[in-house]
């Protein structure tokens, strides 16, 4: 039972109060370096790096940063294409999508983003699965 109460405390305690999700992610600067770390890891991942052959990665970095900033309520307006249009015909599989999400999670971990904020961002991105991955 003692184990259970410790576990329960753990469950409750890391909920950061008073800070918006945007702030917990380190605002624009923090988001930019998280996305950079994610793309850097994607670049070393033989499972998915082929999708990025010939892609202007600086542009993609700028657009994903903008988009994340936008969906978490930051002062940004995403200026790129829809997820459907930009990933059309790419043949992104369930495995590919998970690989990218995994790099994002590790990037957030490295930036010491609280689990609660990580989960909130992931929950905002996960619904894009249907538009990005192939059926």
């Amino acid at each position: 039972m003692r184990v259970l109460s410790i576990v329960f405390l753990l469950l409750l305690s890391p909920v950061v109060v008073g800070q918006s999700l945007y702030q917990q992610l380190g605002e624009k600067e923090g988001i930019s370096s998280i996305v950079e770390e994610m793309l850097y890891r994607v670049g070393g991942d033989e499972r998915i790096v082929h999708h990025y052959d010939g892609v202007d990665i600086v542009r993609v970095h700028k657009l994903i940063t903008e988009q994340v900033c936008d969906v978490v309520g930051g002062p940004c307006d995403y200026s790129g294409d829809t997820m459907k249009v930009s990933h059309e015909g790419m043949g992104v599989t369930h495995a590919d999508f998970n690989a990218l999400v995994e790099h994002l999670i590790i990037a957030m971990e490295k930036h010491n983003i609280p689990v609660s904020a990580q989960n909130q961002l992931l929950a905002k991105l996960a619904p894009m699965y249907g538009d990005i991955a192939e059926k």
Partner: protein
Amino acid sequence: MIKRGLLSAAALVLAVSPLTTFADTGSKLLATGGASTIEGAGGGGIVPWATLSSYADTGEWGATVNISEVAVDDFRLSVQGASLSWNNRVELSYAQQTFDLSTIGGELEQKVVGAKVRLFGNLVYGDWPQLSVGAQYKKNQKFSLPSAVGALDDSDTDWYVSAAKAWLDGPFHRTWVANLTARRTRANQIGLLGFGGDNEQNAKWVAEASVAAFLNRYWAVGVEFREKPDNLSFAKEDAWKDVFVAYFPSKTVSVVGAYTDLGSIAGLDDQSGWYLSLQAAF
């Protein structure tokens, strides 16, 4: 027994882990391979889940080996199992169970061969739960005692349907997973006491459920519940329950510890105690 089993599994894990690199382990997200059940299938500890064991995603193969020990007041269950899965679509599993009747004396044995297929849906993405169907062929290998207390058959097949869903940002901003399983079975004490009995000969549907919360992506806590038939008149059979803590330090190893309540078994009431399970995935 626990100690020797766990140590040899740990040695096995250590021996193979340097050979597997991160991408080789499979592309499913950490912990979405679940743990191993005592019947070999991927799931919680006692409930098979709609998730498939290992981290094999689109186009990938995966395998697990696992051992589990359940020690309650008058009994002890030891399980060695393995599974193979492909494409996050099909899972084949095997488990060898030894049930030590510590107080009564003697032991029971059973092997379970299982297959599970994911029909549709996805644990993490989309609005629909992941839905799978499975079968478990069970063969009791020490049938004289079960037969003496009224069991009809020494082998049978359980059929089940499972639905599982994860909420990435659930209550307390934690990721939650729930699984519901409906099983058609005539197994007595999961088959360790044979199949069918003098009270009830036929299979019936029973409900099983699990709920887990991830504190972070390495640690989860949860509860499980498993309804069971009550076919034998010599002793009543109860539902099984447990409260567990699961640890997923990497995609190669996972450990589950639980406090478990197995109710009445073979006339001995209030069987509660500990459950420990170790899995290695490739």
